[in-house]
């Protein structure tokens, strides 16, 4: 057992309203520059939908993530040798039009237009070619089920085998915000020929070294979530950094901080690094979620604490892990699920699945229905979060329903449901964390992730720009 710390995130899809504040704030901080303007480190998709880039979930086409061959994990995009052959042309690389061609407008026309017969307008032009452009696709083209046929092309719909017509009468919809999952078994790291992408030992954040990156761009197709991007100006790869400069100071990522609906949670998970490979390569993909849960260790277990200390996990990080809201949600209450565990990258951004309104054709006469009576088909959620295991979805949703039942009982004295999984007090804690969701409860990050000694910090004090002539800092 080798215990390491991983910064992890949970998103409560039951509360996400698809406002896209997270996308805008991330973009304004990180990707508002030429070469990166088309990148959304964080984007929000409407599901059903093909998302951004187009149909990224179709691994038959994109060959992202891992697969198991002869009991071993290999990247779906091929062996190391195959990768070398794809150096000069990579058939599975997404191109600009799979994302969208970024544009702006000739705003100056509005101000500088001379007297004319008709009112002036600002027209779009491409940020790549600087030429006049017709807008034919964008990073969120299918918002709120815009473009029905695109929504129907969602591979998850195809996977569940039912006939989902998406007519007005049976329509369903939810929002899926996504950023880099900072996986335990990242495919992007494995695919990079120059070793420029790495996972940080201290907190598990996955980063691309802008020095070492040579622009081979193999990471882009390798990531099954398509969360590594190619900068067409610097010709290097970029990705969500989990806002690590903020993490190192105990602050959450910008998306977490600015989330209007308070749906995001950040905290530390302790995991067993030695068991990662075995967890990922289990042949039955429906078992991967269970394996991931096993990887996450109890931060109060003395054996875990000892191993963590041995591996260099600091006391502050340990304490943080013990207070971790994401540990509560993921492991203790089992409310959050990984996105597409069948990609085998072991993603560390987890999702609480959404409840949804009662389907019109269901005649239940109760306040809180069963999950099968809800609009969003359980099979659809299973295709997203459990590699098709509907039982887990039903159980997870039931916990949310039980929480509501317990809180209702507390207010008006209705009878509690039978066979509750937890004590009523536990559900109240759940309600406090999910319903009230105060900032201070949602974010528990140690500020001491710099990993520097006292002397080192002393050296650095006030030295930015002055120390290291020649700029080697």
């Amino acid at each position: 057992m080798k215990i390491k710390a991983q910064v992890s995130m949970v998103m409560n899809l039951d509360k996400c309203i698809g406002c896209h504040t997270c996308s805008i704030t991330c973009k304004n901080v990180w990707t508002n520059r030429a070469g990166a303007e088309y990148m959304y480190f964080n984007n929000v998709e409407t599901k059903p939908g093909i998302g951004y880039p187009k149909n990224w979930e179709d691994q038959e086409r994109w060959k992202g993530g891992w697969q198991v061959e002869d009991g071993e994990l290999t990247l779906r995009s091929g062996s190391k040798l195959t990768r070398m052959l794809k150096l000069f042309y990579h058939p599975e690389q997404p191109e600009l039009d799979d994302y969208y061609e970024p544009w702006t407008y000739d705003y100056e026309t509005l101000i500088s237009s001379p007297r004319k017969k008709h009112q002036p307008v600002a027209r779009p032009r491409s940020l790549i070619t600087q030429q006049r452009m017709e807008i034919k696709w964008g990073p969120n083209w299918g918002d709120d089920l815009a473009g029905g046929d695109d929504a129907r092309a969602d591979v998850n719909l195809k996977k569940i085998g039912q006939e989902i017509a998406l007519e007005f009468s049976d329509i369903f919809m939810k929002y899926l915000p996504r950023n880099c999952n900072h996986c335990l078994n990242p495919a992007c790291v494995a695919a990079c020929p120059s070793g420029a992408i790495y996972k940080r030992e201290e907190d598990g954040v996955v980063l691309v070294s802008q020095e070492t990156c040579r622009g081979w761009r193999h990471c882009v197709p390798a990531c099954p979530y398509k969360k590594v991007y190619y900068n067409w100006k610097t010709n290097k790869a970029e990705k969500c950094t989990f806002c690590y400069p903020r993490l190192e100071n105990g602050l959450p990522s910008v998306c977490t901080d600015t989330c209007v609906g308070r749906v995001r949670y950040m905290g530390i998970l302790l995991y067993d690094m030695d068991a990662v490979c075995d967890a990922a390569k289990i042949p039955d993909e429906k078992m991967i979620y269970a394996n991931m849960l096993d990887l996450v260790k109890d931060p109060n277990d003395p054996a875990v604490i000892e191993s963590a200390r041995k591996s260099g996990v600091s006391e502050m990080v340990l304490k943080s892990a013990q207070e971790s809201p994401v540990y509560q949600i993921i492991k203790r209450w089992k409310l959050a699920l990984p996105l597409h565990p069948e990609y085998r990258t072991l993603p560390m951004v987890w999702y609480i699945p959404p409840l949804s309104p009662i389907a019109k054709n269901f005649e239940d006469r109760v306040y809180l229905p069963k999950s099968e009576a809800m609009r969003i088909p359980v099979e659809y959620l299973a295709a997203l979060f459990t590699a098709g295991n509907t039982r887990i979805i039903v159980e997870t949703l039931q916990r949310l329903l039980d929480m509501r039942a317990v809180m209702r009982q507390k207010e008006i004295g209705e009878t509690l449901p039978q066979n509750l999984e937890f004590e009523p007090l536990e559900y109240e804690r759940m309600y406090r964390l999910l319903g009230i969701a105060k900032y201070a409860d949602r974010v528990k990050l140690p500020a001491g992730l710099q990993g520097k000694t006292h002397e080192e910090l002393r050296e650095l004090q006030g030295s930015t720009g002055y120390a290291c002539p020649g700029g080697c800092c």
Partner: protein
Amino acid sequence: MSGFLWGALPYIAFTVLIVGTAYRYWTGERGWTTKSSEFLAKDSLKVAGPMFHLGLLMAFGGHVIGILVPKSLTDGVGISEHLYHIIALAGGIPAGLLFFGGFFLLMQRRFGNPRMKVNTSTMDVWLYLVLFLTLVTGFGGTLMNAVGLLGDFNYREAISPWFRSVLAMSPDVELMADVPLIFKAHMVMWMITAIIFPLTRLVHCLSFPFEYFLRNKIVYRRK
């Protein structure tokens, strides 16, 4: 003039190549990239990219043999001049066709697609010109020689030994005296290429990821 061209310029070229590239690596690793433009124009790269690079590798291999392996050696193992030329052409013509053809397609792609502008710096444009001239003098010269337009010129008796003498730090300028103009031009072109090498995207040639085969799949690093 020939003293400079064949006795001094090669050393200038090598020096700039090595020192310049080292300097760039040291201070400008941020900008060290393949400058891949597949993102901007994928379909047109499908054939052109592999074709060009394959031809390049084949041509490079052919150059290594043709220049560094002395005639005396091949004679010694019983490969006649004629046989050598058959082998060279059998490898070289396809290499040249791939190289040239790929280059042509790449040029069409680069200058025919408006999206490629953002991936094409001024240096890239000069590089295209330099590479083009290098290619055309080399391939052209080879073809002309193969059909006998250059008399019975044998580069293995002039250029190759000259090059080896340069490497040995004792340049034999005389060897280049009667080399046909087109091959002389080819020589000048490689030297120009070497001089601009550190200023262009060509540095990516040095980054072939050999270490990838020896590396762990997942890389951890301390902060």
